[in-house]
Protein backbone atom coordinates (compact mmCIF):
# COMPACT_ATOMS: atom_id res chain seq x y z
CA UNK A 1 0.00 0.00 0.00
CA UNK A 2 1.34 3.45 -0.81
CA UNK A 3 1.96 6.45 1.42
CA UNK A 4 0.28 7.05 4.74
CA UNK A 5 -3.32 8.16 4.83
CA UNK A 6 -4.33 11.37 6.54
CA UNK A 7 -6.27 11.22 9.82
CA UNK A 8 -9.27 12.70 8.03
CA UNK A 9 -9.77 9.78 5.68
CA UNK A 10 -8.16 7.94 2.82
CA UNK A 11 -6.39 9.94 0.14
CA UNK A 12 -7.90 9.52 -3.30
CA UNK A 13 -6.55 10.88 -6.56
CA UNK A 14 -9.23 11.45 -9.21
CA UNK A 15 -7.91 11.42 -12.77
CA UNK A 16 -10.49 12.46 -15.34
CA UNK A 17 -10.39 15.00 -18.18
CA UNK A 18 -13.97 16.15 -17.58
CA UNK A 19 -14.19 18.62 -14.71
CA UNK A 20 -17.86 17.84 -14.10
CA UNK A 21 -16.99 14.16 -13.63
CA UNK A 22 -14.16 14.99 -11.23
CA UNK A 23 -16.58 17.06 -9.22
CA UNK A 24 -19.20 14.29 -9.29
CA UNK A 25 -16.71 11.63 -8.17
CA UNK A 26 -15.59 13.91 -5.36
CA UNK A 27 -19.24 14.28 -4.29
CA UNK A 28 -19.72 10.52 -4.46
CA UNK A 29 -16.75 10.01 -2.18
CA UNK A 30 -18.20 12.53 0.25
CA UNK A 31 -21.48 10.62 0.19
CA UNK A 32 -19.88 7.30 1.17
CA UNK A 33 -17.24 8.29 3.70
CA UNK A 34 -14.30 10.44 4.69
CA UNK A 35 -11.77 11.05 1.95
CA UNK A 36 -9.22 13.63 0.97
CA UNK A 37 -9.39 14.02 -2.77
CA UNK A 38 -7.05 15.62 -5.27
CA UNK A 39 -7.76 15.95 -8.98
CA UNK A 40 -5.79 15.64 -12.19
CA UNK A 41 -7.16 16.26 -15.67
CA UNK A 42 -5.12 13.64 -17.50
CA UNK A 43 -2.66 10.82 -16.91
CA UNK A 44 0.32 13.11 -17.17
CA UNK A 45 -0.98 15.44 -14.47
CA UNK A 46 -1.90 12.39 -12.41
CA UNK A 47 1.63 10.99 -12.62
CA UNK A 48 2.99 14.35 -11.54
CA UNK A 49 0.70 14.41 -8.51
CA UNK A 50 1.22 10.85 -7.30
CA UNK A 51 4.65 11.37 -5.63
CA UNK A 52 3.47 14.62 -4.01
CA UNK A 53 0.00 13.57 -2.85
CA UNK A 54 0.88 9.90 -2.31
CA UNK A 55 -2.71 8.67 -2.70
CA UNK A 56 -4.10 5.52 -1.06
CA UNK A 57 -6.22 5.00 -4.15
CA UNK A 58 -6.49 6.34 -7.69
CA UNK A 59 -9.83 6.55 -9.51
CA UNK A 60 -8.91 6.87 -13.16
CA UNK A 61 -10.82 7.51 -16.40
CA UNK A 62 -9.51 5.79 -19.53
CA UNK A 63 -10.21 7.98 -22.55
CA UNK A 64 -8.25 11.16 -21.91
CA UNK A 65 -6.08 13.35 -24.12
CA UNK A 66 -2.29 13.14 -23.94
CA UNK A 67 -1.61 10.32 -21.43
CA UNK A 68 -4.72 8.14 -21.21
CA UNK A 69 -5.80 5.99 -18.27
CA UNK A 70 -4.13 2.79 -19.45
CA UNK A 71 -0.85 4.59 -20.12
CA UNK A 72 -1.15 6.18 -16.68
CA UNK A 73 -1.39 2.79 -14.98
CA UNK A 74 1.45 1.39 -17.07
CA UNK A 75 3.75 4.27 -16.14
CA UNK A 76 2.67 4.16 -12.49
CA UNK A 77 3.55 0.47 -12.31
CA UNK A 78 7.05 1.34 -13.51
CA UNK A 79 7.46 4.43 -11.33
CA UNK A 80 11.03 5.18 -10.31
CA UNK A 81 9.84 5.40 -6.68
CA UNK A 82 9.16 1.75 -6.03
CA UNK A 83 6.73 2.29 -3.15
CA UNK A 84 4.32 4.12 -5.45
CA UNK A 85 4.16 1.28 -7.99
CA UNK A 86 1.61 -0.64 -5.95
CA UNK A 87 -0.90 2.19 -5.50
CA UNK A 88 -4.34 0.65 -6.13
CA UNK A 89 -6.06 1.98 -9.23
CA UNK A 90 -9.73 1.59 -10.08
CA UNK A 91 -10.70 2.42 -13.65
CA UNK A 92 -13.84 4.57 -13.62
CA UNK A 93 -14.82 4.87 -17.23
CA UNK A 94 -17.56 5.01 -19.80
CA UNK A 95 -15.74 2.48 -21.95
CA UNK A 96 -17.31 -0.96 -21.95
CA UNK A 97 -15.73 -2.16 -25.20
CA UNK A 98 -14.06 -5.53 -24.96
CA UNK A 99 -10.80 -4.23 -26.37
CA UNK A 100 -10.50 -1.52 -23.70
CA UNK A 101 -11.45 -3.90 -20.90
CA UNK A 102 -8.89 -6.44 -22.09
CA UNK A 103 -6.28 -3.67 -22.25
CA UNK A 104 -7.04 -2.76 -18.64
CA UNK A 105 -7.08 -6.40 -17.55
CA UNK A 106 -3.50 -6.82 -18.74
CA UNK A 107 -2.47 -4.14 -16.24
CA UNK A 108 -2.57 -4.54 -12.49
CA UNK A 109 -5.74 -2.77 -11.48
CA UNK A 110 -8.05 -3.12 -8.49
CA UNK A 111 -11.35 -2.60 -10.29
CA UNK A 112 -13.07 -1.59 -13.50
CA UNK A 113 -16.28 0.38 -13.04
CA UNK A 114 -18.38 1.52 -15.99
CA UNK A 115 -20.17 4.86 -15.60
CA UNK A 116 -22.73 5.54 -14.31
CA UNK A 117 -21.50 4.33 -10.95
CA UNK A 118 -23.55 4.79 -7.79
CA UNK A 119 -21.90 6.02 -4.58
CA UNK A 120 -22.89 2.71 -2.98
CA UNK A 121 -21.05 0.66 -5.62
CA UNK A 122 -17.99 2.87 -5.32
CA UNK A 123 -18.09 2.48 -1.54
CA UNK A 124 -18.30 -1.30 -1.74
CA UNK A 125 -15.28 -1.40 -4.09
CA UNK A 126 -13.27 0.77 -1.75
CA UNK A 127 -14.28 -1.51 1.10
CA UNK A 128 -13.06 -4.55 -0.85
CA UNK A 129 -9.73 -2.89 -1.68
CA UNK A 130 -9.03 -1.88 1.91
CA UNK A 131 -10.28 -4.76 4.07
CA UNK A 132 -10.06 -3.99 7.76
CA UNK A 133 -9.47 -0.29 7.19
CA UNK A 134 -13.10 0.86 7.41
CA UNK A 135 -12.35 2.96 10.49
CA UNK A 136 -10.12 5.17 8.35
CA UNK A 137 -12.83 6.24 5.96
CA UNK A 138 -16.30 5.07 6.97
CA UNK A 139 -18.47 7.45 8.99
Amino acid sequence: MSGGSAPDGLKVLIVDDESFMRRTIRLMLRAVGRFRAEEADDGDAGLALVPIFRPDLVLCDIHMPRVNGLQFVEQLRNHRQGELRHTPVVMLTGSAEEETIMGAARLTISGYLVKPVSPKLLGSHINAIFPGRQAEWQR
Partner: protein
Amino acid sequence: LLGGDIEVASELGHGSVFTAAVPLVSAQCPVIATARDAHACDASLEGMRILVAEDQVTNRWLIRRQLERLGGMVTDVEDGRAALAAFNVGRYDLVITDCHMPGIDGLELVRLIRCAEASDGADPLPILGLTADVTPEMRERCLTVGMNNIVAKPIDLIRLHAAIVLLTSHASAGAIPDEASRDAELFDPSMYEQLFADDVAEGHEWLGAYLASAAQHGVRIEQAAAGGNRSELRAAAHTLAGSSLSVGAMRLGTLARRVETVAPNASEEEVHELADEVILAMRSAREAIICFMATPALVA
Protein backbone atom coordinates in the same frame (compact mmCIF):
# COMPACT_ATOMS: atom_id res chain seq x y z
CA LEU B 1 -27.83 25.81 -27.50
CA LEU B 2 -29.99 25.03 -24.44
CA GLY B 3 -31.14 28.61 -24.67
CA GLY B 4 -27.84 29.75 -23.21
CA ASP B 5 -24.69 31.54 -24.27
CA ILE B 6 -21.02 30.69 -24.17
CA GLU B 7 -18.63 33.62 -24.09
CA VAL B 8 -14.87 33.81 -24.19
CA ALA B 9 -12.86 36.80 -23.03
CA SER B 10 -9.14 36.52 -23.61
CA GLU B 11 -6.34 38.92 -22.74
CA LEU B 12 -2.81 38.30 -23.94
CA GLY B 13 -0.57 37.33 -21.06
CA HIS B 14 -3.44 37.26 -18.57
CA GLY B 15 -5.38 34.20 -19.63
CA SER B 16 -8.91 33.49 -20.79
CA VAL B 17 -12.31 33.49 -19.13
CA PHE B 18 -14.93 31.08 -20.48
CA THR B 19 -18.46 31.88 -19.41
CA ALA B 20 -21.36 29.51 -19.98
CA ALA B 21 -24.76 30.93 -19.12
CA VAL B 22 -27.81 28.69 -19.04
CA PRO B 23 -31.19 30.21 -18.18
CA LEU B 24 -32.64 28.48 -15.13
CA VAL B 25 -36.06 28.97 -13.61
CA SER B 26 -36.86 30.01 -10.08
CA ALA B 27 -39.11 27.92 -7.87
CA GLN B 28 -40.62 31.05 -6.40
CA CYS B 29 -42.35 32.30 -9.57
CA PRO B 30 -46.09 31.58 -9.73
CA VAL B 31 -45.80 30.99 -13.47
CA ILE B 32 -42.36 30.53 -14.90
CA ALA B 33 -41.88 31.79 -18.40
CA THR B 34 -39.34 33.73 -20.38
CA ALA B 35 -39.00 34.59 -24.03
CA ARG B 36 -36.02 32.26 -24.13
CA ASP B 37 -38.09 29.43 -22.74
CA ALA B 38 -40.58 29.96 -25.52
CA HIS B 39 -37.82 29.54 -28.10
CA ALA B 40 -36.50 26.50 -26.27
CA CYS B 41 -39.49 24.45 -27.38
CA ASP B 42 -39.60 24.17 -31.13
CA ALA B 43 -42.87 22.28 -31.49
CA SER B 44 -45.38 24.89 -32.57
CA LEU B 45 -48.97 25.02 -31.40
CA GLU B 46 -49.83 26.91 -34.59
CA GLY B 47 -53.56 27.04 -35.13
CA MET B 48 -54.40 24.84 -32.12
CA ARG B 49 -57.70 25.92 -30.59
CA ILE B 50 -57.24 25.84 -26.83
CA LEU B 51 -59.84 26.43 -24.15
CA VAL B 52 -58.25 27.54 -20.87
CA ALA B 53 -60.21 27.56 -17.61
CA GLU B 54 -58.33 29.22 -14.75
CA ASP B 55 -59.84 31.37 -12.02
CA GLN B 56 -56.69 33.23 -11.11
CA VAL B 57 -56.36 36.33 -13.30
CA THR B 58 -52.57 36.50 -13.42
CA ASN B 59 -52.12 32.84 -14.22
CA ARG B 60 -54.86 32.99 -16.84
CA TRP B 61 -53.24 35.95 -18.54
CA LEU B 62 -49.78 34.42 -18.49
CA ILE B 63 -50.94 31.04 -19.79
CA ARG B 64 -52.85 32.74 -22.60
CA ARG B 65 -49.91 34.95 -23.48
CA GLN B 66 -47.49 32.06 -23.63
CA LEU B 67 -49.76 29.73 -25.55
CA GLU B 68 -50.43 32.49 -28.08
CA ARG B 69 -46.73 33.10 -28.39
CA LEU B 70 -46.41 29.45 -29.38
CA GLY B 71 -49.10 29.89 -32.02
CA GLY B 72 -52.15 28.66 -30.09
CA MET B 73 -55.60 30.23 -30.51
CA VAL B 74 -56.77 30.66 -26.94
CA THR B 75 -60.20 31.14 -25.40
CA ASP B 76 -59.78 31.79 -21.69
CA VAL B 77 -62.51 31.69 -19.08
CA GLU B 78 -62.56 32.19 -15.33
CA ASP B 79 -64.44 29.12 -14.10
CA GLY B 80 -65.95 25.75 -14.95
CA ARG B 81 -69.38 27.12 -15.75
CA ALA B 82 -67.99 29.53 -18.37
CA ALA B 83 -65.77 26.74 -19.72
CA LEU B 84 -68.75 24.45 -20.16
CA ALA B 85 -70.63 27.19 -21.99
CA ALA B 86 -67.64 27.76 -24.28
CA PHE B 87 -67.29 24.02 -24.88
CA ASN B 88 -70.95 23.76 -25.89
CA VAL B 89 -70.74 26.47 -28.55
CA GLY B 90 -67.13 26.38 -29.73
CA ARG B 91 -64.75 23.90 -31.36
CA TYR B 92 -61.51 23.12 -29.59
CA ASP B 93 -58.48 20.91 -30.04
CA LEU B 94 -57.45 20.98 -26.38
CA VAL B 95 -58.84 21.93 -22.99
CA ILE B 96 -56.60 23.08 -20.15
CA THR B 97 -58.33 23.46 -16.82
CA ASP B 98 -57.36 24.37 -13.32
CA CYS B 99 -58.60 21.69 -10.95
CA HIS B 100 -59.57 24.01 -8.12
CA MET B 101 -62.06 26.66 -9.17
CA PRO B 102 -65.17 28.06 -7.47
CA GLY B 103 -68.53 26.66 -8.60
CA ILE B 104 -67.93 23.94 -11.19
CA ASP B 105 -64.34 22.95 -10.53
CA GLY B 106 -61.95 21.32 -13.01
CA LEU B 107 -62.85 17.77 -12.06
CA GLU B 108 -66.57 18.39 -12.45
CA LEU B 109 -65.98 20.26 -15.70
CA VAL B 110 -64.10 17.33 -17.18
CA ARG B 111 -66.72 14.84 -15.99
CA LEU B 112 -69.44 16.93 -17.70
CA ILE B 113 -67.40 17.27 -20.90
CA ARG B 114 -66.82 13.51 -21.04
CA CYS B 115 -70.55 12.86 -20.47
CA ALA B 116 -71.45 15.26 -23.29
CA GLU B 117 -68.93 13.66 -25.66
CA ALA B 118 -70.23 10.19 -24.82
CA SER B 119 -73.85 11.13 -25.44
CA ASP B 120 -72.94 12.89 -28.71
CA GLY B 121 -70.66 10.06 -29.81
CA ALA B 122 -67.91 12.67 -30.28
CA ASP B 123 -64.21 11.94 -30.13
CA PRO B 124 -62.82 12.79 -26.68
CA LEU B 125 -60.89 16.05 -26.52
CA PRO B 126 -57.41 15.98 -24.99
CA ILE B 127 -57.71 17.57 -21.55
CA LEU B 128 -54.88 18.72 -19.30
CA GLY B 129 -55.47 19.50 -15.62
CA LEU B 130 -53.48 22.06 -13.66
CA THR B 131 -53.03 21.50 -9.95
CA ALA B 132 -50.66 22.16 -7.09
CA ASP B 133 -51.88 18.96 -5.45
CA VAL B 134 -49.77 16.32 -7.15
CA THR B 135 -50.38 13.50 -4.73
CA PRO B 136 -51.03 10.09 -6.30
CA GLU B 137 -54.61 10.30 -4.97
CA MET B 138 -55.26 13.59 -6.76
CA ARG B 139 -53.67 12.33 -9.94
CA GLU B 140 -55.88 9.25 -9.76
CA ARG B 141 -58.98 11.40 -9.28
CA CYS B 142 -58.07 13.58 -12.26
CA LEU B 143 -57.44 10.62 -14.54
CA THR B 144 -60.58 8.85 -13.31
CA VAL B 145 -62.88 11.72 -14.30
CA GLY B 146 -61.30 11.78 -17.74
CA MET B 147 -58.28 14.08 -17.77
CA ASN B 148 -55.50 12.77 -19.98
CA ASN B 149 -52.74 14.17 -17.83
CA ILE B 150 -52.00 16.74 -15.16
CA VAL B 151 -49.37 19.46 -15.01
CA ALA B 152 -48.11 20.63 -11.65
CA LYS B 153 -48.49 24.18 -10.44
CA PRO B 154 -46.61 26.49 -10.24
CA ILE B 155 -46.74 26.23 -13.98
CA ASP B 156 -43.57 26.06 -15.95
CA LEU B 157 -44.06 26.99 -19.58
CA ILE B 158 -41.65 24.35 -20.79
CA ARG B 159 -43.40 21.63 -18.85
CA LEU B 160 -46.82 22.81 -19.99
CA HIS B 161 -45.69 23.00 -23.61
CA ALA B 162 -44.10 19.56 -23.40
CA ALA B 163 -47.28 18.11 -21.88
CA ILE B 164 -49.39 19.66 -24.66
CA VAL B 165 -47.12 18.39 -27.42
CA LEU B 166 -47.04 14.94 -25.88
CA LEU B 167 -50.76 14.83 -25.29
CA THR B 168 -51.78 16.09 -28.70
CA SER B 169 -49.27 13.86 -30.49
CA HIS B 170 -50.73 10.86 -28.65
CA ALA B 171 -54.33 12.03 -28.84
CA SER B 172 -55.20 9.84 -31.81
CA ALA B 173 -53.66 6.81 -30.14
CA GLY B 174 -55.67 7.59 -27.02
CA ALA B 175 -52.85 6.77 -24.64
CA ILE B 176 -49.88 8.58 -23.21
CA PRO B 177 -46.86 7.12 -21.53
CA ASP B 178 -46.80 7.27 -17.77
CA GLU B 179 -45.43 10.65 -16.79
CA ALA B 180 -43.22 9.32 -14.04
CA SER B 181 -41.39 6.82 -16.23
CA ARG B 182 -40.98 9.37 -19.00
CA ASP B 183 -39.55 11.90 -16.57
CA ALA B 184 -37.18 9.28 -15.17
CA GLU B 185 -35.90 8.55 -18.66
CA LEU B 186 -35.22 12.24 -19.25
CA PHE B 187 -33.89 12.83 -15.76
CA ASP B 188 -33.59 10.21 -13.05
CA PRO B 189 -32.90 12.11 -9.80
CA SER B 190 -31.58 9.13 -7.83
CA MET B 191 -27.93 10.24 -8.06
CA TYR B 192 -28.94 13.75 -7.04
CA GLU B 193 -30.76 12.32 -4.04
CA GLN B 194 -27.77 10.26 -2.99
CA LEU B 195 -25.36 13.17 -3.28
CA PHE B 196 -27.44 16.01 -1.88
CA ALA B 197 -29.61 14.80 0.94
CA ASP B 198 -30.13 18.26 2.43
CA ASP B 199 -28.26 20.87 0.49
CA VAL B 200 -30.61 21.95 -2.29
CA ALA B 201 -28.50 24.97 -3.25
CA GLU B 202 -25.41 22.83 -3.76
CA GLY B 203 -27.43 20.24 -5.68
CA HIS B 204 -28.85 22.87 -7.99
CA GLU B 205 -25.41 24.29 -8.54
CA TRP B 206 -24.21 20.80 -9.54
CA LEU B 207 -27.10 20.39 -11.98
CA GLY B 208 -26.38 23.85 -13.38
CA ALA B 209 -22.74 22.86 -13.90
CA TYR B 210 -23.89 19.74 -15.74
CA LEU B 211 -26.18 21.77 -18.02
CA ALA B 212 -23.37 24.19 -18.85
CA SER B 213 -20.95 21.35 -19.51
CA ALA B 214 -23.49 19.43 -21.60
CA ALA B 215 -24.14 22.56 -23.66
CA GLN B 216 -20.46 22.85 -24.47
CA HIS B 217 -20.25 19.21 -25.56
CA GLY B 218 -23.42 19.68 -27.58
CA VAL B 219 -21.71 22.46 -29.50
CA ARG B 220 -18.70 20.20 -30.07
CA ILE B 221 -20.97 17.43 -31.37
CA GLU B 222 -22.81 19.76 -33.74
CA GLN B 223 -19.57 21.21 -35.08
CA ALA B 224 -17.86 17.84 -35.40
CA ALA B 225 -20.87 16.36 -37.21
CA ALA B 226 -21.05 19.34 -39.57
CA GLY B 227 -17.31 19.31 -40.23
CA GLY B 228 -17.02 15.53 -40.61
CA ASN B 229 -14.52 15.31 -37.75
CA ARG B 230 -15.26 11.78 -36.52
CA SER B 231 -12.61 11.55 -33.80
CA GLU B 232 -13.79 14.83 -32.26
CA LEU B 233 -17.40 13.64 -32.58
CA ARG B 234 -16.53 10.45 -30.77
CA ALA B 235 -14.60 12.23 -28.02
CA ALA B 236 -17.36 14.79 -27.41
CA ALA B 237 -20.06 12.10 -27.40
CA HIS B 238 -17.99 9.99 -24.99
CA THR B 239 -17.67 12.83 -22.51
CA LEU B 240 -21.31 13.83 -22.84
CA ALA B 241 -22.42 10.22 -22.33
CA GLY B 242 -20.36 9.81 -19.16
CA SER B 243 -21.57 12.99 -17.48
CA SER B 244 -25.19 12.56 -18.65
CA LEU B 245 -25.51 9.00 -17.40
CA SER B 246 -23.87 9.99 -14.13
CA VAL B 247 -26.20 12.93 -13.55
CA GLY B 248 -29.25 10.84 -14.47
CA ALA B 249 -30.03 12.19 -17.96
CA MET B 250 -30.50 8.62 -19.15
CA ARG B 251 -31.93 9.14 -22.62
CA LEU B 252 -29.37 11.76 -23.54
CA GLY B 253 -26.56 9.64 -22.14
CA THR B 254 -27.70 6.55 -24.02
CA LEU B 255 -27.98 8.47 -27.28
CA ALA B 256 -24.57 10.06 -26.81
CA ARG B 257 -23.14 6.61 -26.12
CA ARG B 258 -24.66 5.42 -29.40
CA VAL B 259 -23.03 8.32 -31.26
CA GLU B 260 -19.72 7.43 -29.65
CA THR B 261 -20.07 3.82 -30.77
CA VAL B 262 -21.12 4.40 -34.37
CA ALA B 263 -19.09 7.58 -35.01
CA PRO B 264 -16.12 5.88 -36.71
CA ASN B 265 -18.11 3.94 -39.31
CA ALA B 266 -21.52 5.58 -39.71
CA SER B 267 -22.63 7.28 -42.94
CA GLU B 268 -22.75 11.07 -43.12
CA GLU B 269 -26.53 10.94 -43.09
CA GLU B 270 -26.61 8.72 -40.02
CA VAL B 271 -24.17 10.98 -38.18
CA HIS B 272 -26.28 14.05 -38.88
CA GLU B 273 -29.46 12.31 -37.81
CA LEU B 274 -27.89 11.08 -34.59
CA ALA B 275 -26.34 14.46 -33.81
CA ASP B 276 -29.77 16.06 -34.26
CA GLU B 277 -31.29 13.45 -31.95
CA VAL B 278 -28.66 14.19 -29.32
CA ILE B 279 -29.41 17.91 -29.46
CA LEU B 280 -33.15 17.27 -29.12
CA ALA B 281 -32.57 14.86 -26.24
CA MET B 282 -30.35 17.45 -24.61
CA ARG B 283 -33.13 20.01 -24.83
CA SER B 284 -35.60 17.57 -23.25
CA ALA B 285 -33.13 16.66 -20.50
CA ARG B 286 -32.56 20.33 -19.80
CA GLU B 287 -36.29 20.93 -19.54
CA ALA B 288 -36.72 17.97 -17.21
CA ILE B 289 -33.83 19.08 -15.01
CA ILE B 290 -35.13 22.64 -14.86
CA CYS B 291 -38.58 21.33 -13.94
CA PHE B 292 -36.98 19.18 -11.25
CA MET B 293 -35.15 22.17 -9.82
CA ALA B 294 -38.36 24.17 -9.82
CA THR B 295 -40.43 21.42 -8.20
CA PRO B 296 -38.14 18.58 -7.07
CA ALA B 297 -40.88 16.71 -5.19
CA LEU B 298 -42.74 16.04 -8.45
CA VAL B 299 -39.99 14.10 -10.14
CA ALA B 300 -38.54 12.44 -7.07
